[in-house]
């Protein structure tokens, strides 16, 4: 039972992962610092999930990245680009709508 609940929770979190990551990239972050920021914000993400996700978002044209090799060790910093900002705004609106809908549904189901 607990395992099934856990799987459902993972599925639920997966749906908002992109929005959560985009929301933390208004300022440039490298992989590990972003993971820390997400964990501190209450949404820990496995490293094996987060790092490839950053690459996929960059490939989708939502993020820009650059290497910082001035300080050792070299790190790749990601940040939102213009398209990413627009997508974040759209997803944020969609998220608020979704929360309202879900609240209504859950309210009815508890009555």
């Amino acid at each position, binding site marked *: 039972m607990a395992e099934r609940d856990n799987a459902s929770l993972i599925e639920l979190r997966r749906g908002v992962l992109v929005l959560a990551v985009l929301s933390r990239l208004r300022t440039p972050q490298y*992989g590990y610092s972003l993971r820390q920021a997400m964990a501190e914000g209450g949404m820990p993400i496995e*490293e*094996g999930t987060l*790092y*490839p996700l950053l690459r996929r978002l960059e490939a989708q044209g939502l993020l820009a990245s650059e290497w910082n090799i001035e300080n050792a060790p070299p790190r*790749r910093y990601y940040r939102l680009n213009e398209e990413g900002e627009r997508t974040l705004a759209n997803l944020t609106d969609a998220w608020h709508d979704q929360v309202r809908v879900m609240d209504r549904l859950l309210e009815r189901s508890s009555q």
Partner: protein
Amino acid sequence: MNANDVIESYVCDVARCLPRGKRNDVAFELRALLGDELAAKAQAAGRGPDRAMAMALLKGFGRPAEVAGRYHQRPALIDPADTHHFLIWTLAGAVSIAVLSAMSPADGRDSGDLFLKWLGALVIVFAIIGWWRRRYPGAVGWRPKHGRERMPRRYAVLALIGTLVFPVFMYAAPQTFVRVVFLSALPTSGLELTQAFGKSGLRTAAMTILILLAAMYAATVVQGGERSWTRWAGVALHGGLGLLLGAHGGLAGRGLVFVSPQANQVAAPVFGLVGAFVLLCAFYDIYREWARISPAPALDDRRN
């Protein structure tokens, strides 16, 4: 091997699973990220990074091929949605090859080799289908094929006529059949049956089954469609007929069916192959019965 060597080895294994153009870039970043993770782990443990620590970190990260799949997802060779049909076709091939080998074993066919070729051909066909769907999404949509009834009355009428004209008439009087069909243009002397075969129990049994098959189609026509008993009767009759035709092949191989030795020589493998085909049809019907879907009556039926 120290912690850095372990990570280096892991990064190389991940990069090898990626397209060539992405390898160096991903490897460089992955190495830096894993270095950060390892340093954080070492700091939390209050000691320097070691091999065990690196192995624990990488275990959580996943198999190199899985990690590479997250960086660059390649399409499955066989679309997971096609797995069911792939397995069905694989099994159908295996059963067909086994039946063919059992019914006509004399031609020295290597069944194992044939099955591997079948499997290879299936992989190629399914891979091409998957590629086609990805390349042209929506090009081939689903279309309704048929209703619930597999053999409506009009098909049963055709099957009845076909059965009476072809196997029943041909089997009962092969010489007359050829004379009528080919308007006496072909010689029929080679089709004369031996006296022993003409009076044999094998011939009587085959004739009986053919007549029962025709009767089954007639019953389907009268009933206006198939019923459970006609479907199972069809399975039993086709199975029996397939085995009997296989036995005919054995007799013809020993020159005991036709008077003419050449006719026996030609007929022996044909009997075997036709018997195998009919037997496979029976297996297919069994599969269809096993896989038969019987949902609740459709809305139209419930209204009537």
